[in-house]
């Protein structure tokens, strides 16, 4: 079915859901997982680029991959940096290089704006990916519609 799954990870809550789903999918069909984490590099004021909480995020993502390995899933982590906001390109390229059968991603990551249902990375991925893209909804109930309007209401 899915021989190779490329999994977009960034340690955010939507990403956690994608990790869980990909793990189950891999277990079910004996797939290999290539998790791709793109470090978000923010432009610092004067001291050059700063990675925001990058250590913390990386530790979390590493632990998630280790957990998969402990569960008997063949999973590896690829970490790259992006200066110019091109995580989607990097993930799509990784999928092409690994001949991925599917890319699994959450609806949005850390940097998405509240109320935006589909983050820019997920949206660009849909355009760039040469393989199917599996998008995991954000809320426990599934549909993001109610969640998004609630979030929007909370923000307002």
């Amino acid at each position: 079915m899915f021989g190779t799954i490329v999994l977009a990870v960034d340690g955010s809550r939507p990403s956690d859901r994608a990790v869980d789903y990909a793990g189950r999918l891999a277990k079910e069909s004996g797939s290999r997982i290539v998790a791709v984490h793109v470090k978000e590099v923010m432009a610092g004021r004067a001291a050059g680029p700063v990675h925001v909480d990058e250590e913390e995020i990386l530790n979390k993502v590493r632990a998630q991959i280790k957990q998969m390995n402990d569960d008997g899933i063949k999973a590896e982590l690829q970490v790259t940096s992006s200066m110019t906001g091109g995580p989607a390109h990097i993930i799509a390229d990784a999928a092409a290089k690994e001949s991925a059968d599917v890319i699994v991603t959450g609806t949005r990551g850390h940097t998405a704006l509240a109320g935006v249902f589909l983050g820019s990375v997920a949206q660009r991925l849909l355009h760039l990916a040469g393989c199917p893209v599996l998008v995991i909804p954000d809320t426990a109930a599934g549909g993001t519609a109610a969640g998004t309007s609630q979030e929007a209401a909370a923000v307002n």
Partner: protein
Amino acid sequence: MILIATDGSAPARAAEALGLELARARGSGAAFVCVWAPLRGSFGMPLPEKLDPEFIDSERTWAEETLEAASRRAAAAGVQAETIIAKGPAVQAVCDTAEQRRAGLVVIGSHGWGAMMSLIFGSTTLGVLQHAPCPVVVVRDNPANAAEAPV
């Protein structure tokens, strides 16, 4: 249950193929949903009843034929797939069907007949991504066909 949204377009055909493959591999049920909307006159007004009923019903007939064709392809692939005909708007019809049938997964093409070219994402697909009660797989037309698409 895997719900496959189809309108017979090339990306939808690719979605059908993946959905059937997944259903077979997982041993889960599969269903096709095709959405139709009644033809409307100018400014979205309903068409006069006096018009040829065959013309008024042409969209529904199209949906039925699309589902029949999908069903035949499923049978050829060795998968028994249910067919569901739903009345539009498309996003709501697909998502409501997914909810009613408790679909575990929706498979949909990147765009349907509505898109002007393959590089533009269909509004139906984006809407389904937003409102679906379950994970959604978006499938593009196969790259060989995409290469021939206008840029």
